[in-house]
């Protein structure tokens, strides 16, 4: 399952984030992440596994399943319904997602965190662990530290991130 997830996350993410047909994709990470999980859970169900014939490309099968799951979600949830001029609740993120989530000045301040991490080892851990997804052991050998120390630095970096968010009023 992990192998399938890793191999096809890109495809499922594209369907969910960028949409298909007349659908322009889910805007907020909460909806996107929920949909991605729903699609993979449907693909991992025994019935779905048995339905795949093993001969045709799995990409096509998974894409079809993803489209169906997205359509079901759009149909059952009035948040995503077309308004038709009526007071139907709508996805508040639809128009200006980034502007809605964080104001421009906050985004700039939050983005500055990375530049503030100037220590070579900390920077390597920030990029290696949080962005590239390297294992602690790999990072430890790369930066010449024990795994325990790397883990401590990961936790410390996370605490700094939280502090940074509090300083810029993203966290109360």
């Amino acid at each position, binding site marked *: *399952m*992990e192998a399938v*997830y*890793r191999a096809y*996350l890109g495809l499922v993410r594209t369907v969910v*984030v960028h949409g298909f*047909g*007349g659908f322009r994709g889910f805007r*907020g*990470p*909460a*909806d996107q*992440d*929920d949909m991605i*999980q729903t699609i*993979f*859970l449907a693909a*991992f*169900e*025994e019935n779905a596994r048995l339905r795949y014939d093993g001969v045709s490309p799995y990409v096509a099968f998974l894409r*079809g399943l993803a*489209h*169906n799951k997205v*359509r*079901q979600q*759009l*149909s059952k949830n009035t948040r*995503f*319904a*077309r*308004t*038709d*001029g*009526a007071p*139907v609740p709508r996805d*508040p*993120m639809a128009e200006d*997602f*980034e502007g809605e*989530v*964080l104001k421009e000045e906050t*985004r700039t301040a*939050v*983005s500055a*965190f*990375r530049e503030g991490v100037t220590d070579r080892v900390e920077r390597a851990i*920030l990029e290696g*662990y*949080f*962005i*590239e*997804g390297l294992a602690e052991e790999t990072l430890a050998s790369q930066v010449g530290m024990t795994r325990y120390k790397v*883990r401590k630095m*990961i936790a410390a970096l*996370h605490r700094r*991130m*939280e502090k*940074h*968010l509090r300083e810029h009023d*993203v966290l109360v």
Partner: protein
Amino acid sequence: MFWSSENKTERLIARYLDPSRRWSREDDVQMRDALRESETLRSLYDKRVVAHRLMLGLDPETPSHVEQDRQMAATVRIALHAEAAVEESAWALPTWTMPLAGMAAAALVAIVVTSNPTSTPTPISGEPTTSSPHEEYLGIRSGSRKDVRAGIGVSGIDAKGREYEVQHDRAWIQDRIRFFYRCEDNQLAHLFLFGLQNDENPRWYYPLPAEGEHASIPTRCASNSQRTQLQGDTLLANRHVAGSLTIVGIFTEAPISHEAVHASLKGRVNRILEGAFEDNLREALSLDENAAVSVVNLWIHPERGATDVER
């Protein structure tokens, strides 16, 4: 009670992004369930996640590896747990009871089917939104469908979200209608969908200018193609009134602009509705002969329970 559960979810979101803390299947299920229920919590999650991504120098739409690993591990654990639960429940039922269970299920289905009250809309779909061409009944649902290359279909959705066949070509005010199409000619790459009532104001569906759409939407036409459901339902309120509704789907090779259709129909709707409708429409819109026109005629009733209007 509300505040405590909200605070709990806030703590879960914080933990989700903290790689030094454990993240279990139960945590994930609890957090996602809470997010589905609350707009406030979804906004909080979006804010935290976007901030997390920006701090790492990522695009707001690109998840970090911490997020991806968390989500993958939780998804796999949830899938394995669900499978184990199914196996456990299957074993919990002694083998000799299986035939009895089957008979009981069949009897239950029979009771449900025979006791279905006629006044209640009949749900016609739950799970799949595509079906094989053999199961398709678009032509029947759409009334007569002269052009076999492409056709539109309509179903109704009541206030409780139950989908019903537009039996006898009728729907109700305050319900929603859902559109489908099937198209086997891959050259017909665009669909323009609108409705006409007995006044001069067309009801735009796809494209819907209020949603920022200004031209036909792309289709997925192909030989042996399946039925495609259009995203979003249309509320039969505000713009619609009780009475006849003629829904028109125009499949074309090139997109048609809303502006052009609007200009062509202006002041001519009633004339088009009289007589040879399709011919009138083709002439008014200057459609070439490759374009396919599909028409569904509905009668919109006033609120449920109210006396039907005279046809």
